[in-house]
């Protein structure tokens, strides 16, 4: 059991392949909430959809553990599968996306600063309208806080391309939210 707690993801996967439930527990503990969070942010903050996707992702993992590409890190591999699932969903539900874009989003914000609350809402609304490529980059870099090399591996892009896309995304966000320029940096 101690081995499983400290075991590498590769080791856990090989145990999972053999139906080891302790290995499943460990993988789920490490990545369950994290991947659910990713799906939640990518799939329009739809909890049910994010749960379905998390379930599908782990079922894929259980059934196809042997397809793990050992050249990638486990987390990167998991994110690439999850990201591809989201992309497929975007394509499948193009009309739904349009609907989601039009939806008024209510963010529960307890901030006493109305400017900050408005800023959060504006940022949230704008990021929901980002196209597929920009949204995955935004979520991976600024929400999941992954590094450029990690994102490059997940998206299968050169690091330079990722850096340049991040640069242009920041520029776009800054231009879009320029009315909040006077907002003080909050701690």
């Amino acid at each position, binding site marked *: 059991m101690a081995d499983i707690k400290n075991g590498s993801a590769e080791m856990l996967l090989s145990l*999972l392949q*053999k*139906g*080891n*439930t302790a290995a*499943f*527990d460990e993988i*789920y503990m490490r990545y*369950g*909430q994290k991947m*659910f*969070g990713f799906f*939640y*942010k990518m799939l329009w903050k739809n*909890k049910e959809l994010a*749960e379905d996707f*998390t*379930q599908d992702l*782990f*079922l894929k993992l*259980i*059934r196809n553990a042997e397809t793990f590409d050992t050249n990638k890190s486990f987390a990167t591999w998991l994110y690439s599968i999850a990201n591809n699932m989201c992309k497929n969903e975007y394509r499948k539900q193009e009309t739904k996306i349009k609907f989601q874009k039009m939806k008024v989003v209510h*963010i*529960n914000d307890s901030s006493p600063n109305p400017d*900050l609350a408005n*800023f*959060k809402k504006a*940022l*949230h609304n704008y*990021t929901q309208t980002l196209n597929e490529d920009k949204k995955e980059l*935004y979520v991976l*870099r*600024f*929400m999941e*806080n992954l590094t*450029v090399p990690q994102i490059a591996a997940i998206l299968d892009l050169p690091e330079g391309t990722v*850096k340049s896309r*991040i*640069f242009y995304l*920041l*520029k776009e*966000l*800054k231009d879009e*939210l*320029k009315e*909040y*320029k*006077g*907002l*003080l*940096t*909050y701690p």
Partner: protein
Amino acid sequence: MSMNADDIIQQKQWHELTPEEKLLVAGIAADEQEFNLLKNMIRVSLEENNLVPALNPILKEKLYSATMQNKKTNWLGWYAAAAAITGLIIFLLTTEKKEQQNPIVKNNPAPAVNKIIIPDSTANPVLILPAPSPTETTKQKSNNIALIKTDTLLQKDEKSNITTPLYSNVINPSVDADSSLLAFISEVY
């Protein structure tokens, strides 16, 4: 290690920036206000992680049972494969035994099939005949020879330069010792 523009924005304050870092972020943040706007944007984005609800615990139960099922399926697969291989081995052994016990097979083992390729001076037509079996009768031999003759005559009609040693090459291996057959051949020829 050099930092990316967004790393600098995340980790530093405007007044802490070196001239090189200011140059690096200049493309997206020309002044302190723009710099702070991006800093706020990154912070708000990171904070959204706190707004992610907790994963439903029922999901874990479902996946847990899927893991158990996968384990069972794995074993079932192995059992099925082992049963199939055992069945195949038993089938092959039984069939072979039956064949060996068959009196026809027992008394008349199948002769080895030899083929004689007749060299041809014209190089084009190649005649392939089965080698006579040890129990071949004279009549069978003569039939073979007649067949050779017909074929060869046909070839001769087409290509008049065909040579006679062709027959001796064909017949030699089995006919040498049979003088009556040799006489018969000469007569037919």
